[in-house]
């Protein structure tokens, strides 16, 4: 292993070791680095921004408590994402009697580009499992085995899931060639005294 320059930021493994020794400041740095990834993954699972934020917080609190069980020689992100997925399942069980929320769009509005908006198509037409697997493999660059561990599936099952997702997307793009950019999914803000939005006359 190459030695680090004196003023380079500490790497993940040393931050994990310091956190395991009880340094909350080191864990804060890990939170800073990794919370957007955990939040994005939870958003693909829950499709609800408020739930994703609550679960991100719970995931890091739980990770801090259970950090002594984590093997510091492994990457931290798959372990965090596994906790995040379990937390989301627990929340789903707890809130089962409630009516289903309207799903939010995960993917932000695309920048104008000549190519097709593939991730929005994936979000619309794939199951949550398939979309999460695609997200972890292509966006977070996890291996298929790591994706399997996070999603509680075998590597072969994930391979099939990703392959089918790609085939579905290819068929969709063949059948519906890219046209004008889609309308924003997010509804316009509700007029309120707090956001200074004028009621259209």
């Amino acid at each position: 292993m190459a030695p680090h320059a004196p003023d380079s930021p500490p790497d993940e493994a040393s931050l994990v070791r310091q956190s395991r020794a009880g340094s909350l400041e080191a864990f804060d740095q890990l939170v800073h680095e990794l919370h957007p990834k955990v939040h994005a993954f939870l958003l693909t699972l829950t499709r609800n921004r408020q739930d994703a934020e609550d679960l991100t917080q719970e995931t890091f609190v739980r990770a801090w408590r259970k950090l002594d069980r984590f093997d510091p020689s492994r990457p931290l992100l798959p372990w965090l994402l596994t906790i995040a997925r379990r937390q989301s399942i627990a929340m789903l069980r707890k809130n089962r009697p409630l009516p289903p929320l309207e799903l939010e769009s995960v993917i932000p509005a695309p920048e104008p580009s000549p190519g097709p908006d593939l991730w929005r198509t994936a979000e619309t037409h794939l199951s949550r499992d398939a979309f999460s697997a695609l997200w972890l493999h292509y966006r977070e660059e996890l291996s298929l085995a790591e994706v399997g561990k996070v999603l509680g599936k075998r590597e072969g099952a994930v391979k099939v899931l990703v392959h089918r997702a790609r085939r579905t997307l290819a068929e969709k793009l063949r059948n519906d060639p890219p046209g004008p950019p889609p309308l924003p999914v997010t509804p316009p803000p509700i007029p309120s005294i707090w956001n200074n939005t004028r009621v259209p006359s």
Partner: protein
Amino acid sequence: MNESDIDRLLRQQAPDIPVRPGLEARIHMALRQRRRRRLHPGWLALPATALVALLAFLAPPEETAPTGVTVAPPEPAAEAESALTALNPLGSEAEAIRNDAERTGRFLIDCLPSLSVAER
């Protein structure tokens, strides 16, 4: 468009999902709150208290050591009672038979006319 094109496009177009700015501060705050709750001294003393209670429950009963309090000597009545109960019960039976025999003898002497009176 085939699957390898999809593969390439998925890697190229991977979007960034914006995070609300307050989320990180909220996580830091939650971590500190839980930590403070975790280190409450009352909870730290709980295992020690439970151990002491368990040892007190499992320990053998202590022997009554002399603690300066004078123990009263056994009363004489109790001693006499114990001596009485220690006698052979056949002795008292023999005493009773002997008394009966004396009473019977005196009765017979009183009832039977004496020879001297009959001669008179």
